[in-house]
């Protein structure tokens, strides 16, 4: 069963040093725009995967490795961070 971007708030804060659940991402595949909190999130052995709630495209993947966190953001066209 999947959760949503809220569940990854702690990991996101470790990567971006600020809250990112309210940041809006634009899907590189279908153009859907919404807060990361509303992304479909699967926690798998390979990492935390954020998917577009509209088209299921992989927006972002976070992988925790010893001493670092790897972030792949290839599925996002834009990431808008409120300041």
């Amino acid at each position, binding site marked *: 069963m999947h*959760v949503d971007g*809220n569940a990854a*708030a702690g990991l996101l804060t470790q990567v971006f040093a*600020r*809250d990112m*659940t309210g940041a809006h991402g634009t899907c590189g595949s279908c153009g859907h725009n919404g807060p990361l909190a509303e992304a479909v999130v699967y926690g798998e052995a390979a990492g935390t995967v954020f998917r577009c709630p509209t088209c299921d495209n992989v927006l972002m993947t976070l992988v925790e490795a010893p001493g670092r966190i790897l972030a792949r953001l290839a599925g996002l066209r834009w990431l808008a961070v409120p*300041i």
Partner: protein
Amino acid sequence: MAPAALLQRLTWLPAVIAEARAETPQARTLVLDVPGWPGHRAGQHVDVRLTAGDGYQAVRSYSLASAPGEQPAITVARVADGEVSPYLVDVARPGDRVEIRGPVGGYFVWEPAMPYRPVLLVGGGSGVVPLRSILRHHRQSADPTPMRLVYSVRAPELVIYREELQAEHLVYTRTTPPGWPRPAGHIDQGLLREVAWPPVDSPLAYVCGPTAFVEHLSGALLDLGYRAGDIRTERYG
């Protein structure tokens, strides 16, 4: 917010269970002593990390049940065959140590300073936990925002924060108290039309609980005429 407050270096904080309080036969509130706790916002959560003697670690998220300004507390409901929740509900004792990462989350939060749009809180099972923090905060700050909770729960004996939530709308899905006016069943359109603020009032909704519950309820609120951007959701899995 000052730029300095935005930058958050997040680390695992040692925490001690200060108090354990049974809410129902299935749920327990753990009050935590967290040296250096920075305070939290209503609706935020923490990640809890447990480490076994052999070094094996498990991490789960738990919403903060207390209001901002109060000591951090979580309320955990036992998931049968779960790895972490049975430990926190049945085994952990005051004095035990856990690690905490948080408070985190800036989307599923409510603050009195927001524009005074009526707020509808919809919780399923343990999804009521962050909504309880929001309600407590709302009451303690004597905020004029109209706020209402609809709480879906399986049976009367499973209602958590019973005293505090008496005046709210309880919906029983399996068994009801004797003489309850509504037969057991899920929250439906008819009930929402009765208790939810009408869309013309530009309400803001917070929906939290098991993923299937959240999907069902956010769909029902959309059907009722709520705007997608005005429905904040948090899925527990």
